[in-house]
């Protein structure tokens, strides 16, 4: 199935640069697309899981551009998601803009905020930048709570309307998210092999060396932060219109940590990483939420221990995966495929 001729038979530039470069990947991706398109048939009431994974995968893709390709650490990704969510809620609610206009606008608003946050990254890096973004996260939460005023910052959001149709219910929202998810993923995958993507990777590997080679650090770091924030903004807008009620509690430091966990566990610097990571982290936290009540019905005494056990399990799995395979799930998949290529022989 995974047969590939020994030797490299790519004869033109296009074949060499293809994202899905063998028949195995092309067929596999087609199967994946079919499975996702038919998801309402096989997931039933668990369709919300896929919608959530899609939204978070969009946000995590942004963080991969920033952290995986440009090497800038951000612990404030959820803040950009909040900005997108509240921006979109405001645009559709108070200004009455249609959803298809509000969604990209929310991304643009977050892009602008991201570009501003990028400015300190020229002076500080690594750990210090992580702390600065952490501070930004808390300041944004505070700002939103005070700007909204009553009700600890919670507001309700309209259902998304596209033209004459109002999207209601899980399945319709799922398809909306799926389309944007595919667009966002494809854009990021293509970005990674363009001139811009290569420049971002040069900045990651050694920013001053990149500058010496003529890469404008101000422009590219700003662009990376802006793109990451823009992705988070789009994810936030989708989240707002999917949940219909948003409050700063959805976008706390915990969500930011989840995002970083997604990109690290998925595999930094891999275009599949954020999607695998988002799927894994979401499935893990939601799965633990689904499994624990089932256990409680069998063992009633387990009820008080359920919540802390969920936290412990999450932390322990994170640590175990990072120690076992620092390259994340993408690397794990690569290893698995290499083993299957030659199965049943060892070399």
């Amino acid at each position, binding site marked *: 199935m995974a047969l590939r001729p020994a030797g490299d038979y790519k004869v033109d530039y296009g074949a060499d640069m293809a994202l899905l470069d063998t028949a195995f990947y092309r067929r596999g991706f087609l199967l994946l697309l079919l499975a996702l398109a038919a998801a309402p048939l096989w997931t039933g009431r668990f369709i919300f899981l896929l919608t959530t994974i899609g939204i978070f995968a969009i946000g995590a893709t942004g963080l991969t551009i920033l*952290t995986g390709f440009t090497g800038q*650490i951000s*612990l404030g990704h959820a803040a950009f998601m909040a900005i997108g969510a509240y921006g979109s809620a405001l645009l559709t609610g108070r200004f009455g803009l249609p959803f298809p206009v509000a969604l990209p606008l929310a991304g643009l608003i977050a892009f602008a905020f991201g570009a501003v946050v990028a400015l*300190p990254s020229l*002076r*500080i890096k*690594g*750990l*210090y930048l*992580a*702390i*600065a973004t*952490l*501070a*930004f996260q*808390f*300041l944004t939460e*505070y700002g939103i*709570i*005070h700007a909204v005023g009553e009700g600890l910052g919670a507001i309700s959001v309209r259902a998304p309307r596209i033209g004459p149709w109002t999207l209601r219910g899980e399945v319709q929202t799922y398809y909306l998210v799926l389309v944007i998810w595919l667009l966002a993923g494809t854009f990021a995958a293509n970005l990674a092999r363009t001139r811009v993507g290569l420049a971002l990777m040069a900045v990651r590997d*050694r920013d*001053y*060396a990149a500058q*010496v080679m003529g890469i404008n650090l101000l422009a590219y770091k700003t662009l990376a932060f802006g793109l990451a924030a823009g992705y988070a903004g789009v994810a936030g807008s989708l989240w707002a219109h999917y949940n219909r009620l948003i409050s700063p509690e959805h976008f706390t430091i915990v969500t930011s*940590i989840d995002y*970083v*966990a997604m990109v*690290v566990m998925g595999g*930094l610097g891999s275009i599949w990483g954020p999607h695998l990571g988002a799927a894994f982290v979401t499935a893990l936290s939601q799965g633990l939420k689904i499994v624990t009540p089932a256990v409680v019905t069998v063992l009633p005494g387990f009820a*008080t*221990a359920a*919540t*802390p*056990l*969920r*936290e*412990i399990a*999450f*932390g*322990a799995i*994170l*640590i175990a995966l*990072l*120690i076992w395979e*620092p390259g994340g799930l993408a690397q794990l998949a690569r290893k698995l495929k290499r083993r299957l290529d030659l199965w049943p022989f060892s070399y």
Partner: protein
Amino acid sequence: MSEFLAGGLVNGVAVGSIYALIALGFALLYKSTKILNLAHGELVLFGGYLAIALSRALPFPAAVFLTLVAAGLLGFAIERAVMRPLFGQSLLSVIIVTLALGYIVRGVMVGMWGGDTRQFIGVVPTGVATVAGIPIQRVGLYSAGTALFLLAAFGLFFRYSLIGIAMRAAANEQLTASALGVSLRRVFAYAWAFAAMAAAVGGILLGLWLGVNFALGFVGLKALAAVILGGLDSIPGAILGGVLIGVLETTIGGYVDAHVIYGFKDILAFVVILLVLIVRPYGLFGTEHVERL
């Protein structure tokens, strides 16, 4: 006005000295391992909860002693089980792992002690004392004293003891120190143990003052502001930064809170972080890092 300022100053020093003690743990660990432990707030709570639980059964000094021993062992265990396999991994992985560690420690604590606020019961005299006519929390005096004592103790330790000198050498240049026979493993293990013990001391004082509950994990982040202000790898900087943050909070924060916008006091620490990082990223006493190609 001057009364407000004087009161703010004295109480700010009292609160700030608790921040300083917690910040000390951050700085200790960063100095010798270059790891910023984002689970530090959880370790603080662990110290507080454990000491309170032990003080129900044992006299207070014994409870404090046992808590410090337990915290030290926890530090050793974390280094051995989690940090050592990750030696040489990227900064981001290490940050994530300390966060995950925080999840685990918090989960264990919630499982054991539940989520409500707990306090010491009548172990030492608390309440309000007066210093030069200004009312002040008595716990503030204890923590200021402890902070001064620990500052002196760690100063002497790093100056004269063999392991202290090894830790400074490792902080300066890990590979060179290793080549000269310093066991990096031992240095890291001690650093984690000391950091956990400093956190436990902070937790105990916090427990004496406010009682401990899980909202106070936040206090670890305020201590983060203190170390950033003082310089990440400077122990006197951490102490001074903690006191400064405390004073800023009670004076400027208190004023703005009351007269301009509500809730500013809790966010002040992060404003300080951003300002310091933009103006002077290595803090007041931190080592300035010059990057060369």
